[in-house]
């Protein structure tokens, strides 16, 4: 497990910049002959050290280091090699700030490569590419912390990995250089972002999370995307990528999602996000897209009067907008309405109230039992490990018959910012749907899904509101 030292101006030859154990103290004390001039010398094809970097080695780069390759370069990481930006004054301490890559010619590709089943690590390094920027290789893993990733390519962003690549990023800042650039991943690749942001001041990216690839997966938490014009941008997307996003900041008026009714589309879940308009209501609980079946949004335009609390904290109403791709009984727009911690030692009743509403088209036809139903995932009272799914979808289904209407309800809904009560227009269309009382063994988590399988775009959408009765 050797250590290699790098700082611009270094003159080390042979193994002079290599140490068997970690050095302490400053680069000045080491002297220029004890460190290499760039990471290119070690893993970028320079082949300066007599003893090449091997698996598990560490490259310590001064935080004051800056190197422009002025050429396309591949940094090839042996397995588990760590490239660390360290304090110039105390090389034993991590400190972000070192810079590597290309930034001057405008046409240099930069690759951070490894091999399948191998992991590369970068900490605190500001990577630059003035053309294409690729990180990772097929079936490999890349772990990047702090630092920055920048490309000046006009149409491509930073591309993470090839097929099956796993990328984990923590507190990494992206510097897009053109409106069309973003964070791209490939077939079957997974990227996990914890923290991080988009650098401001340059061109505003149209969308930040971009993929056209089948099975690609984004897992994002606590990322500031407010500088981007939108979160994702897809077309002809039949490949079913998935997005699991939470606690994001998005730009005012930013595009949250898009859908193509002719394509299957992605599964997209955005939980708990704020927009940059400010104000106490500048918080939204969810925006969800379930393939090409439609979208579900936290909605405050219509809400229950004295209605439900979700998780006992906040009133939430979901606006479900299904498309003509949904299929009654079989293929609904599904939305996870709540994840509840309930005491199932006593009986619990879960009710979802619906409001179908349209300002101009009048009262919509009431939904039927094969067009809207609930599903609840819960632990079983006897087999605690294997959960069960309760559903109000009809247990038997006569495909030649018209299903029954949902039960009517008398609860009052309100509309809009003036809290006006909705009366006649909605009376005929609201409906309660109650699951059979459920019980279990203990206080347990219960997941409530709402399933809408009718396109109501011609007559408005459906607001749903959850109510739990633990008496």
């Amino acid at each position: 497990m050797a250590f290699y030292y790098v700082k611009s101006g270094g003159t080390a030859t042979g193994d002079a910049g290599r140490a068997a154990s970690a050095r302490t103290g400053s680069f000045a004390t080491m002297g220029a002959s004890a460190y290499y001039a760039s990471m290119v010398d070690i893993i970028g094809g320079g082949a300066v050290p007599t003893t090449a970097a091997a698996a598990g080695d560490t490259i310590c780069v001064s935080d004051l280091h800056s190197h422009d390759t002025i050429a396309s370069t591949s940094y090839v990481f042996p397995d588990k090699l760590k490239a660390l930006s360290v304090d110039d004054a105390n090389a034993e301490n991590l400190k972000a700030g070192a810079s590597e890559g290309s930034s001057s010619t405008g046409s240099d590709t930069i690759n951070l490569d490894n091999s399948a089943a191998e992991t590369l690590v970068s900490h605190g390094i500001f990577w630059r590419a003035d053309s294409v920027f690729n990180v990772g290789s097929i079936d490999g893993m890349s772990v990047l912390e702090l630092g920055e990733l920048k490309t000046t390519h006009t149409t491509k962003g930073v591309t993470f990995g090839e097929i099956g690549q796993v990328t984990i990023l923590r507190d990494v800042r992206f510097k897009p250089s053109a409106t069309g650039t973003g964070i791209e991943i490939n077939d079957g690749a997974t990227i996990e972002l914890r923290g991080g942001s988009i650098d401001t001041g340059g061109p505003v990216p149209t969308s930040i999370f971009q993929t056209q690839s089948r099975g690609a997966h984004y897992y994002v938490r606590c990322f500031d995307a407010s500088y981007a014009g939108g979160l994702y941008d897809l077309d002809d997307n039949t490949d079913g990528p998935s997005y699991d996003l939470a606690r994001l900041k998005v730009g005012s008026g930013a595009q949250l999602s898009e859908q193509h009714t002719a394509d299957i589309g992605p599964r997209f879940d955005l939980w708990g996000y704020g927009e940059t308009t400010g104000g106490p209501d500048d918080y939204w609980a969810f925006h969800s897209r379930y393939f090409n079946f439609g979208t579900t949004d936290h909605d405050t335009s219509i809400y229950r009067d004295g209605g439900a609390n979700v998780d006992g904290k906040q009133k939430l109403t979901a606006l479900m907008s299904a498309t003509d791709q949904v299929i009654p009984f079989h293929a609904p727009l599904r939305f996870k309405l709540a994840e509840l911690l309930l005491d199932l030692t006593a009986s619990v009743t879960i009710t979802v109230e619906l409001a179908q509403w349209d300002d101009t088209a009048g009262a919509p036809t009431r939904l039927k039992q094969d067009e809207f139903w609930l599903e609840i995932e819960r632990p079983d009272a006897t087999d605690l490990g294997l959960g069960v799914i309760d559903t109000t979808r009809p247990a038997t289904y006569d495909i030649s018959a018209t299903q029954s209407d949902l039960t009517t309800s008398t609860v009052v809904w309100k509309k809009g910012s003036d809290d006006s009560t909705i009366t006649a227009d909605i009376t005929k269309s609201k409906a309660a749907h109650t699951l059979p009382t459920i019980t279990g063994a203990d206080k347990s988590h219960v997941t409530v899904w709402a399933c809408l399988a009718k396109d109501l775009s011609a007559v408005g959408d459906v607001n749903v509101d959850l109510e739990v009765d633990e008496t």
Partner: protein
Amino acid sequence: MPVVSSTIELQRLQRNGATFVREAHTDHVGKVRKVAYRAPVGADINATMLARVPSLEASNKSNELRTVYQRVVNGSDWATLRDSLAWNTVDELETFVLQRTANRLRRIDGILENSIIQNETHEVIAFPILFQSSGPRINTLLALGSVNDANTFKQRVQALAVGITEFDIEFMPTYEGVD
């Protein structure tokens, strides 16, 4: 080819004054693209919708290239996809294919010599589109005969890619014996 129709199909005024908006943009082949966002207080949602059209058209164009490429790599018929392009010409598609191929080759060049066997696997994955394709420049490439040798293959792609300005076709000599 343009987006031919843009409408606001849903707008919901929220309690904080923001408006939840869903736009529907229909292109010249009838495909509808819906965009959801929340407009801040005072925003002109019609102006926002119209301002979005150029970026949608641009992304339709670039996304079609990436999608066709991916589908052919995944086994779809090249000729069918080539002849049904909605946003690009065959020449633009060819340029894109060569560009992608060159980028893949460049990456392979950058990997250590002891991974060459694996790299050849990469090539098999990366280039089936070229061997299924047909177009003026790609036909030229294939007419040159066998391209089983990786080095020859790279040189031919390099020669054909002359004039493609968006990327740099220069290969990096990072391991002995290549270029």
